[in-house]
Structures are given as C-alpha cells and as structure tokens.
C-alpha cells in the first residue's frame, strides 16, 4: 500500500499517462521542453468546505462530481461510510468526508454533492455540502499541514496552501480510501 507520496519532483499534472506506457525518446524530449517553459509545476485543486474549514482534493484524482442521489445504507460498516450507490452500473461506496475527518457528522438533506474519486482500481464518493471551485497553485507553495483536524486524522492531510486569503488544506485521497486499519480494529 502506498502510504506516503513524495511531495517533491514526481508529482504528476492533471492528465497523466497510463502507467504501462513505455517512454519513447520523443516523450523525453517533450518533457524536457516543457520543463524549460515552466519551471514551476502547477497543481489543480478542487476546493470545498467541510464544517468550517476549506479543503481541497487534487483534480487528477477526481473522476466526476455528481449531485446527491439516494444511497443504499450498508449495515454493519464504519459510521463514515454512508452506503453505496450504483453509478452507471458501478457500485461506489459513499464516504461522509466530515465524519471521516473527525469533524462531526453531515446531516444528509439531499442537497449535497458527491465527489467521485479514484485511487488505483478503487472508486469512492466523498459526500460534501458544496464545492467552491478549481484553483491552480504552485506545487512549491504547499506547506506542512496545520492542525485543522484531530491529531489522529492528520494522516489524511497532504499539506496546506494559501489562496486569496484562504488557507486550504489538501487531502490525501489514498489514505481516505484506505480503511484496512479500521476494519482490523473492528474485528
């Protein structure tokens, strides 16, 4: 399981190549040129509010954003898992992001949005009240995360960026989707 992702260097931009494609000489030349043009790597973030805080997920990890659709509760699963939906035939678990981050529970009213994300083969939907928009920030601008969530949830944070007076916390999607420990504890 890939626990920590390096913050430096290899961060990929929004449209990434499929993993198995072999790199050709042309590709190498192209990337070199690109790097010359823009020294700074920009990352695209989708921002939204959970509770009182502003959070963000990297756009490259997002499949789509859908309006709330009724989900089927799954019995006997952790609280933050609200249930599953069937999105064009794919079964997708819905995570109450607020509860996942230890910031209380979302009262589901049917006006929420679901950010469908993926990590590897896994898909999941993060349920949030609303989304604010997409911003581009320089990768170098990402700083260490302040304590906006309870300490035991710190693993879910990648870092923080300042954007127009706002402090936006970037979430670690792969950790959010990893429930192996919770399940172990439950057993």
């Amino acid at each position, binding site marked *: 399981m890939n626990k920590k992702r390096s913050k430096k260097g290899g961060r990929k931009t929004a449209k990434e190549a499929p993993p*198995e494609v072999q790199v050709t000489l042309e590709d190498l030349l192209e990337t070199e040129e690109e790097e010359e043009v823009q020294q700074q790597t920009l990352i695209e973030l989708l921002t939204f509010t959970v509770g009182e805080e502003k959070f963000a997920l990297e756009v490259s990890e997002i499949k789509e954003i859908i309006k709330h659709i009724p989900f*089927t509760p799954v019995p006997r699963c952790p609280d933050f898992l609200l*249930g599953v939906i*069937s999105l064009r035939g794919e079964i997708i*678990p819905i995570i109450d992001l607020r509860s996942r981050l230890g910031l209380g529970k979302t009262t589901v009213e049917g006006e929420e949005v679901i950010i469908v994300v993926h*990590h*590897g083969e896994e898909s999941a939907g993060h349920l949030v009240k609303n989304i604010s928009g997409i911003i581009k920030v320089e990768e170098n601008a990402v700083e260490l995360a302040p304590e906006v969530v309870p300490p035991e949830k710190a693993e879910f944070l990648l870092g923080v960026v300042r954007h127009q007076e706002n402090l936006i916390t970037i979430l670690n999607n792969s950790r959010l989707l990893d*429930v192996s420990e919770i399940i172990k504890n439950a057993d």
Partner: protein
Amino acid sequence: MSRNKDGGMTLPSSIKNFLAELEDLLEKLNRDLLDLEDNLSSGKETHYIINNLFRNCHTMKGLAGMLSLKEIGALAHALEDLLDAVRLGKIDLGQEVLEILTRGYEHLGRNAKVISIGGKASAHKAFLRKIEEFTAASIKETSPDDLLSKLDLDDEIIRTLTEYEEHRLIENLNNKRNLYIISKEFTFEHFDDELNGYLSRLKSDGEVISTLPSPSAEDHSKIRFDLLWATSSGHKKVAESFLGEEAEITAVQQKSPQEKDKSSFSSSLRSFSDTVRVDIKRLDNLLNIVGELVIYKTKLGEISREIITRHGMDKTSLGLNKTVKALERNLDLLQRGVIETRMVPIGQMFGKLHRIVRQLSRRLGKKIDFTVSGEETELDKLVIEEMADPLLHLIRNAIDHGIETPQKRRKAKKPSRGTIGLSAFQKGHHIVIEIEDDGAGIDINRVRKIAEQKGLLGKGMDHEDKQVLSMLFLPGFSTSSTISDISGRGIGMDVVKNNVSRLRGMIDIETEPGRGTRTSITLPMTLAIIQALMVKVSDSMFAVPINSVLESLKITSGQVQKVEDKEVIKLRDRVLPLLRIDDFFNLESSQNGSPGKDDLYIVVVGLAEKRLGLVVDSLRGQREIVIKSLGNLLKSVKGIAGATDLGDRRAILVLDVNGLIQEVTHSI
C-alpha cells in the same frame, strides 16, 4: 486510467501472453510426461512422446528467449538437449531420464508461477548442472551404420535424412520392420489436410519416418509426396491394404528406392489450430457489459408493459413490445455465447491431480488407482482456478487418510489397490464434482470426541452425523493424530469450504466406516450472472442468490419457538434456526413494532448441510442479477456478498448466505 497501486504488480502484456502460452506448454509437458511414464512401464512406443516433449521444450526456449526470461530459457534449453539426445537414441530412456524431466517440469511450473506474481524466477543452477552432466555422461557413441549403406535407398535420399530420421530408420530396421516408399499425389489446394489424413492412417499401422515432397508431379494442381514408411505388417498384408489405391508402393529391400528431407510441412507458417487466446480480463469486461445490457433489457420490458397498461395495445406499444421480445431473445444468446467462451473443460485440472496421486501414493507406499470421468465437463475458467486448491486438498486427504496401506486393506478383505475416483457432471444449472475413495471412511465417533473435547459440540448430546461431519470444516480441526507434511495439520478443510462457498457452492460429505468416503461439491456453472430472489425487509430490498435458497414459506408468528433464547421453527421434524434480517442489520422497522407482524416470510437457505431461515417482510419475485463487488472499502462487511442494481440507480445489496450462516452458527 487506473494507476499502478503497488508498483510492480502489473505485468507487461507481453509477459502475460507469454505466461498464458507457457501454461499451455506446461500442460502439454505434463500430459506427455504422464503418457511417457505409462508407456515406459508398459513397454509401448515412446518416440512420438519424446518428440512432442522435445518440440514443446524447444518452443518454450524460443519464447523465453524473446522475452529474455533467462531462467526459463536455460531450463528449457537443458531439457531440450537431453530430449534431443534421447530421441536420437544417444541416451537410453529410463527412470533417470524420466525423473529429470519431471523435476524440470516442476521447476518450470514453479518459475512460471513466480513470474506471474511479479517475482523473480529461480535459475536452479544445481539442477541445470545436473542435467548437463547427465546428458554429457550418458551419450553413447553412435556406431557408423553399415545398415543404411546396405539399403536399397538412394544416396541422395539418405543424405537428406536428418539425424533423427536416420536414427529412426536404423531403429526400425533393427526391429526388423519392413520399409516402403509410398508415392502419392495430393491436390495442391488441400494437400496439408489430405496429407495429414493419409499420414495418420499410415501411423496407425507403423511409423512414417520421412515425408518428402517429390518434384515429379506433372499435373500442376497436384503435389506428390514420397513417404518413407516402416511397418511390421508383412508384404502381403500391405499389398492388400493398399489395393486399388492411387499410390505407388515400393518395398525397400537391400537396394534403392527414394527418400528425402523432413521438409517440415507440419511446422509451416500456418498455425496448428483455429483457437484464439484471450486474456480472461477481456472476457470479464465483456461479461460486465452484457450484465449491464441484461439490466436494461429488464427495465425496457417493464417500461413496455407499463406503456401497454397505460395506453392500451396500440400499434406503437405493440411494436415496442415485439422489439423488446426480440431484444430479449438475442441478448440471451449473446449472454450465453459470452459465458460459453469462458468455459473450459475441467479435465485440464484433472491431469495435474493425476500427477499428485502418483507422487503421494508412491511416497506413502500405497497402491492407488486414480480414475477420472467427465473431464469434458465445462466450468467457468475462474471457477476452475478457485477449485484447484480444494480439489488438491480433498485428493490429498483421500490418499493420506482415506486409502489404507496394502497390508491393512488385505486384512480388511479389500483389494490391495485402493481406488480414488474423481468425476464431474452437470446437474441442472450446477456442476457436481465428486471425489470418492474406497478407503477407511471417516471415524465419526472420533470426530465427535475431538469436537466435544474442543468444546465445539455439547457433550453427551445426540448430534446427527451430518452435524458432526460439518465440524471437519472448522479451521484448525484435525482428526489425524500424527501430522504429516501431506495433510493432517488441520488446515485445509476450512480452506476447501471457504473456496467452495465463495463460489456460492455447496459441499457434502458422505462416509461409511470401512467402505470409503464421498465428497461432493456442487458449483454454479457460472459466476457473473445469477438468479436471485428479491426480498424486502423494513424499507430495504435485498437479493438472495437463488442457488442457496431451498424453499420459502409463510408462517405466523405463533409458530416461532425459542430454544436457548434463539428463535427457531419446526420444519418437517427438523429444527430450523431463524435469523431476522432486520435485527441482524439493525434496520429500523418502519412498518410497526415487531410483535404486530403476524405473517412472517421465511426464506430457507442452505449451504452444505447447514440450514437457516431468513425472516423477511415480503418476497418480491425472482430476478436475474449481476453481482458486483462492494470494493475494498466494504469488502469485510459480514453478511453481504456484493451489490447489484436493477436499472434505477439504486444499489441492492446481495446477501452472503454463507456469511450469515457462519454468523449464526458462531453465535450459538
């Protein structure tokens, strides 16, 4: 695009293709090795088997070379060299050769497995050295053959014979067989088929040493072949059998007919068969799409019926109805077609088990006949994969615990050779695999005692045999007082059960002391699309896979009794434990308080010998569903096997009958 999660788990597709091909080749090697062993011990012809082995090792070497898999290449190469020497008669075929080949096969198999999980193959240096040394040391000096010069064969022909063909020729002459040259014309268009047909006829009564295209054909639409044929039939019989045929037959005496090179027409650019190899993932994908279509079809049918009820039978609604019907029919065909492409004969696996039986019985000093039937029975590729370990285990158990030693058997007035039978057959929509042995049977009292000692069964209670036998499937349960490295460690039977129930199958054991044991595994023919009974509990809909549903009944709440605080009902003299789905899943009962409900619906589900009654609010008919996984996040939720949707974007949970039964039996 999915990312490579763990880094390194994704194999390049070239390797994947190679693995598929390698698996095929290994399977062929295995079969040939078994045949070789048989024929060697019964003194039958072996040269064509050696040839097959040689060819397949050669192919494997080539493949491995292309992908620079050095370890596999080197092994295949060493085996090829050895086989080449054997087929040229330079090394005598004996137990030692057979053993090396078998070990080589095992090493190759292990390497293939290691590579398939992304590991590094082992070079087996010591083994390689052993083969090389053995090959070098065992090669006999070939004697210059005056036999050939004495023959009435054209020098030109003799010169064109390959080393192997020459060796076969001498071999045949040494065996005092008669030699003929058969010259026959074939049409140019179909000569390969015709020639192959002709060759197989000749092979049935002798050996075709060489096949030589001959230039003498005058008719341009025809091609002439000279076949050098050795047979033990006498001249008269040969003359009779070729009577009236358009072929020239010349007996080769001590003088000279014709001959030429083994221009290998059989290994021309055309491939041998019309089959296509497909990655199972592609088929999975196809099946998923078909699954989606099935859902839409059902939905469309509903809409069409609704239109008819709403608007009556006008032209449009009837037209729609007709089209939906046609769609249904064709989709059904498509679905069946896709499922069929995933089906492979179970015989593939039986061959491997054959080998295990031989090895183990030899090691344990038991004499065992292994009979198989129904090899052609087809099962979903995935089901077969999942069944490999369970079957292996059951067979091991049968050898280790079932069949007695020859001495014991004689004492019990049984034939000293034991029999293990493996059979597969279709039964309705299921496939049944049975493993039967004529060994000692399972000592039920012993099982009962151990279960009581371990506190799994209440002491002094009168448990049914079936219930006692079901203890065998519990993790860590072993009746064997000695632990061998073959079985008896108490792991295994629970694995068997888990794999079987993961496939939504059932397992049953019947045993008779002194007479033997029969284990039958009942499996669904395919996994992806299943029939399910839809049930409603509180406000939630659930799907119960129909193959685990035995019956459903309506009872009144008065019939429910309590035994040790658990709800049960009496069903045909058996006590059936109940499980209230709403309690189990903490569903809020929306209709009314629980005692108010007078009518209860019970869905009786069964897995192997276990029965459980699921209490639901209502039954909502049978549907065809596609089971989908809940994903990693939810995979450990007990009692839920997956989810499906009925085309209205609402996910419906599919109950995991096995999980529910386990929950209940654990809590008792």
